[in-house]
């Protein structure tokens, strides 16, 4: 199988998954339940993607825990996204120096 065919298939499927609901869904949703559901979905998706996956980043549980702890603390004080993100990485790096 040619690499080009694979590449076209991956890109095509991925695009259609995003495009169809985004383009063809025009109505404002009336159902209160469904509107509530869509309001909560972003938080639920991000949480499910982060936990427990974040503990498997950095190849070491202790550096990952350090990074997570710093991120949670800074997020609690509502620091900007970039500050929280880079501080988590910095904490993981610093703790990694002692591993």
């Amino acid at each position, binding site marked *: 199988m040619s690499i080009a065919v694979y590449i076209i298939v*991956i890109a095509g499927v991925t695009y259609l998954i995003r495009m169809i609901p985004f383009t063809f869904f025009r109505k404002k949703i009336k159902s209160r339940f*469904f509107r*509530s559901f869509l309001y909560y*979905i972003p938080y639920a998706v991000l*949480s499910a993607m*982060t936990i427990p996956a974040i503990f498997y980043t950095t190849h070491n549980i202790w550096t990952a825990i350090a990074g997570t702890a710093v*991120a949670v603390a800074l997020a609690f004080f509502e620091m900007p996204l970039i500050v929280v993100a880079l*501080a988590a990485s910095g904490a993981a790096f610093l703790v990694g120096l002692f591993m």
Partner: protein
Amino acid sequence: MKNSFLRGMSHGIPICLGYLSVSFGFGILAVSKAGLSVFQASIISASNLTSAGQKAGIDVIAAGGTIIEMILLQLTINIRYSLMALSLSQKLDKRFTTPHRLMASYGITDEIFAVCSAQKAPLTPAYMYGMILIAAVGWVTGTALGAAAGELLPLSVSKAMEIVLYGMFIAIIIPPAKKQHSVLFVIAMAAALSVVFRYCLPMVSDGFAIIISAVAASAAAAFIFPVKDEEAEE
């Protein structure tokens, strides 16, 4: 118009930095595992703009898998984007005509979705294009650098960079959880279900585990804490 394009770009900077590091890893993998060229790896990143789906795609290419397998795998891993697209479709500005929707849907990633859905105002095409542009530049540049320069970066640095995007997710979900019990509930329940899938039901793929956890937690919250009209209009 120009203003909101720039605002989108500035909101996309953390995404760009996170993507640089993650896609660097993808670039290394595409060369070492699937034997792709720097150009092929960069084309995959430019045409997909997604991490898990591309990684899985590389696996299928490396194994010489069938097209059917590729399609099913991509559907499973990426179907969450349909939920995100549906959610974003509810907060689009009137300027979002069909051609704009066709173009901007290319850029619905986990991170762009997260930042866009945290915006109070309706989303304009210019705002999304600014964010998508800078994110895609980071994603493709990182891929090309990783594919070309592989192991030049010290391991301690590249490992620590893996956590960047997750740090951003935490920064998005914690502040609203402080203010609303309902959001705290959703986050806790989704995380708990995700942990159950990981350790008790390992046969469920990561993509499906995320979908089921998120749908169950959101449905429970919608049932227990239905939002008031003002909140949903935001």
